[in-house]
């Protein structure tokens, strides 16, 4: 169990820990810190990048680098994934340690959380020990102030022996103290003199035995004393890294003998190898406590009142469902009008485009491919799919920034545990609402490989941003059709929530089945941090995620929907033996489509929608139109188009179920192949939901036929 080198080591190292300098004079700065201390926010503020931030530990799984310029220097900032320690228990920690020890950085910044400084100091002390040129950045000062925590930064600086800068990363002005100190450290104006950590006597004795040998050779940037301790701590991965970095002859007989002697000294004092790591950690924690004592004054902390409600026995679950419903309701109401406006504007523009082609005497086939094919599908994507996607996404981001998602994971851990999976799976699941590929990458926060694979394979049961508008549209066309206004939007939101709950139930069922079959095992240990609620940067989120989402969807629509539309037009207008090629294709899938309660056109649309789910519905509309039952329709006439092509409420239910449960889009499949480490897992991720969808749809249509 646990992380394997092949699963995360590779992905962690290919995520940018190779530093790219822009000029040879650039100073390299390693930015380290505990998970969820606002490291990415700080990084974004310094570099002007837009790394996604969210209020939960492990949000940043890939490391990034960015550039930052001050009066004195140009910096390359390397964002190292959040870790609690450098003792290399996990792949991320190994990456962090190797970069800090051997990455060739000019200085390191350890970002600490002012609201729980003692724990952050634990990492800061470890970094300072291996890398003296360290600056401690106490972040989230404003949050700490609100919580009544007082921190004496000057005293802290004196005790640590390295520069300390206090910041609140989302306020750019506060970053000045950090960049000033960075300049001074890099120019040599400040020389750091890190506090020496005192260990217990037997450990100190062991250190001095090995240190004597280590001082005699080149140990790179690492102080000999610390390197000695690392060698005694007997870490196999470190040994290999040291050989790579300091030369294969670093470990010779002399050093080996010294290490054996050190181990003997420790054993005489009753300290075994396993206990040693423990003792080291508790020594560091003790040091952190001593440093914090008097420098930090903290009022007694309680679980916020709001948490008592959000995670209460009576209200925990109802609130989660309500939150989902409210988000959907806002999406439905908000998307309604933009959808209509965009529809009429784009279709009017389409007509003018068509006129233009006629005016310049362009051949009919060209007008058909460009206007009736490519442009029209694009217009359908923009008018029907884009508005709900663009509204839902920022709302979801707000909830994420607030810090509600870890509460969901906390509430849902027990059912996940019963399915022999990990509660953190709830975090990836909710990420899936935004994008399944992001949900799959997010599964990296789950330590156990077995549980991570379960989370990856079941992520698709939550409909992503590209799929839920399909469900939404069909619900409002076929089931809420009569009810309009407030009641209608409320009913739509309730029905959509019910569909999502079905998807979540399927997640549980399939997780349980996987745990009993191909991914057999028991749930492993689990810790989850519940971060304090943070006020989201509402304006910034709205603008960024709205803009990002709109550009992303339009970009993908242009890349995928337009060519697909053009191809369909060609297929519909090229005839063999008096029938169009398209009708042969949809005819081929017709029997299968009927079997699962749909038709050949819908099945073809789902298959063509593999690159992007948001084109499925527009493609189906397009194919129906080309088959000529209704040649010209506006978005408001979708219901007439569908019923004219034989849709019944049963067809609608089957399409909803199949939208919820079918193969993930190609991007997600590629991500799964990369994250899970093998095409086998991508194939399973393709097959499992598709099979579930086919079986459920076949049952629904079978029952409806029997009743009829």
């Amino acid at each position, binding site marked *: *169990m*646990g992380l394997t080198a092949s699963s995360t080591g590779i992905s962690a190292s290919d995520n940018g820990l190779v530093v790219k300098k822009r000029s040879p004079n650039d100073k390299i700065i390693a930015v380290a810190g505990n998970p969820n201390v606002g490291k990415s926010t700080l990084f974004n503020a310094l570099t002007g990048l837009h790394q996604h931030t969210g209020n939960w530990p492990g949000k940043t799984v890939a490391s990034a680098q960015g550039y930052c310029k001050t009066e004195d220097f140009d910096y390359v900032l390397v964002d190292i994934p959040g870790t*609690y*320690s450098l*003792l290399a*228990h*996990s792949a991320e920690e190994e990456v962090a340690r190797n970069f800090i020890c051997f990455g060739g950085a000019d200085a390191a910044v350890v970002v600490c*959380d002012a*609201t*729980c*400084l*003692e*724990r952050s100091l*634990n990492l800061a002390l470890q970094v300072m020990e291996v890398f003296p040129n360290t600056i401690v950045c106490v972040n989230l000062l404003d949050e700490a102030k609100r919580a009544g925590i007082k921190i004496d930064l000057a005293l802290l600086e004196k005790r640590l022996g390295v520069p300390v800068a206090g910041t609140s990363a989302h306020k750019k002005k506060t970053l000045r103290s950090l960049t000033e100190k960075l300049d001074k450290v890099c120019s040599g104006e400040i020389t750091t003199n890190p506090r020496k950590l005192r260990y217990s006597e037997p450990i100190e004795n062991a250190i001095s035995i090995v240190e004597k040998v280590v001082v005699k050779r080149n140990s790179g940037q690492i102080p000999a004393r610390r390197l000695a301790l690392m060698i005694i701590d007997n870490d196999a991965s470190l040994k290999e890294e040291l050989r790579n970095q300091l030369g294969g002859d670093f470990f010779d007989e002399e050093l080996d003998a010294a290490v054996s002697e050190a181990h003997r000294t420790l054993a005489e004092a009753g300290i075994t190898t*396993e206990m040693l*790591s*423990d003792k080291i*950690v*508790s020594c560091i*924690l003790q040091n952190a406590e001593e440093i914090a004592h008097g420098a930090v004054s*903290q009022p007694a*902390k*309680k*679980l916020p009142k709001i*948490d*008592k409600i959000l*995670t*209460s*026995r*009576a209200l*925990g*679950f109802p609130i989660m469902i309500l939150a989902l419903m409210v988000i959907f309701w806002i999406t439905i109401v908000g998307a309604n009008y933009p959808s209509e406006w965009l529809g009429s504007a784009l279709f009017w523009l389409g007509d003018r485009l068509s006129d233009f082609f006629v005016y310049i005497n362009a051949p009919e086939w060209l007008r058909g491919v460009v206007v009736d094919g490519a442009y029209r599908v694009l217009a359908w994507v923009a008018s029907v799919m884009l508005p709900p996607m663009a509204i839902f996404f920022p709302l979801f981001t707000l909830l994420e920034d607030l810090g509600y998602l870890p509460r969901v994971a*906390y*509430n849902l*851990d*027990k*059912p996940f*545990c019963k399915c022999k999976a990990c*509660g953190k799976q709830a975090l990836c699941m909710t990420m899936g609402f935004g994008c399944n590929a992001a949900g799959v990458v997010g599964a990296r926060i789950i*330590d156990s490989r077995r549980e991570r694979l379960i989370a990856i394979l079941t992520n698709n049961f939550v409909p992503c941003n590209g799929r839920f508008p399909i469900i939404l549209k069909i619900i409002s066309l076929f089931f809420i059709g009569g009810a309009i206004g407030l009641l209608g939007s409320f009913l739509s939101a309730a029905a959509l929530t019910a569909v999502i709950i079905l998807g979540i139930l399927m997640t549980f069922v399939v997780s349980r089945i996987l745990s009993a079959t191909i991914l057999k095992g028991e749930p*492993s*240990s*689990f*810790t*989850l*941090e*519940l*971060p*304090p609620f943070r006020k989201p940067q509402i304006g910034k989120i709205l603008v960024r995620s709205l803009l990002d989402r709109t550009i992303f969807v339009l970009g993908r629509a242009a890349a995928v929907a337009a060519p697909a539309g053009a191809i369909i037009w060609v297929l519909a207008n090229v005839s063999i033996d008096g029938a169009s090629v398209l009708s042969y294709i949809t005819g081929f899938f017709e029997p299968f489509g009927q079997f699962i309660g749909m038709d050949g056109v819908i099945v073809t649309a789902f298959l063509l929608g593999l690159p992007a789910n948001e084109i499925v519905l527009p493609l189906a509309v397009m194919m129906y139109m080309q088959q000529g039952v209704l040649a010209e329709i506006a978005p408001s006439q979708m219901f007439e188009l569908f019923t004219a092509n034989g849709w019944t409420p049963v067809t609608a239910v089957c399409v909803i179920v199949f939208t919820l449960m079918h193969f993930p889009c190609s991007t997600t499949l590629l991500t799964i192949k990369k994250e899970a480490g093998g095409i086998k897992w991508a194939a399973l991720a393709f097959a499992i939901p598709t099979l579930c969808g086919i079986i459920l749809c076949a049952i629904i249509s079978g029952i409806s036929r029997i009743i009829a």
Partner: protein
Amino acid sequence: MKSGEILTKRNCLSEMKIGETAVVERLLIHGSMRRRLLDLGLCEGSVVKCVGKSPLGDPSAYLICGAVIAIRAADARCVIIRGI
């Protein structure tokens, strides 16, 4: 990963009620979970407070080193505590 000792009714983290505070006496857990707990600041001598239980009763939330951490009863059973 967990040690052979099975605790039932002794003073362990899982027996704490909401609002109670205690000092950690011993960690009877090994391997990666022990590391995780140490990283989070849960070691011999540290102070913990039980601050909540999830809607279904498990996991529970503890205040450790200034942060709220959720731990399952199965793991909390292996952390021996004593009252202050």
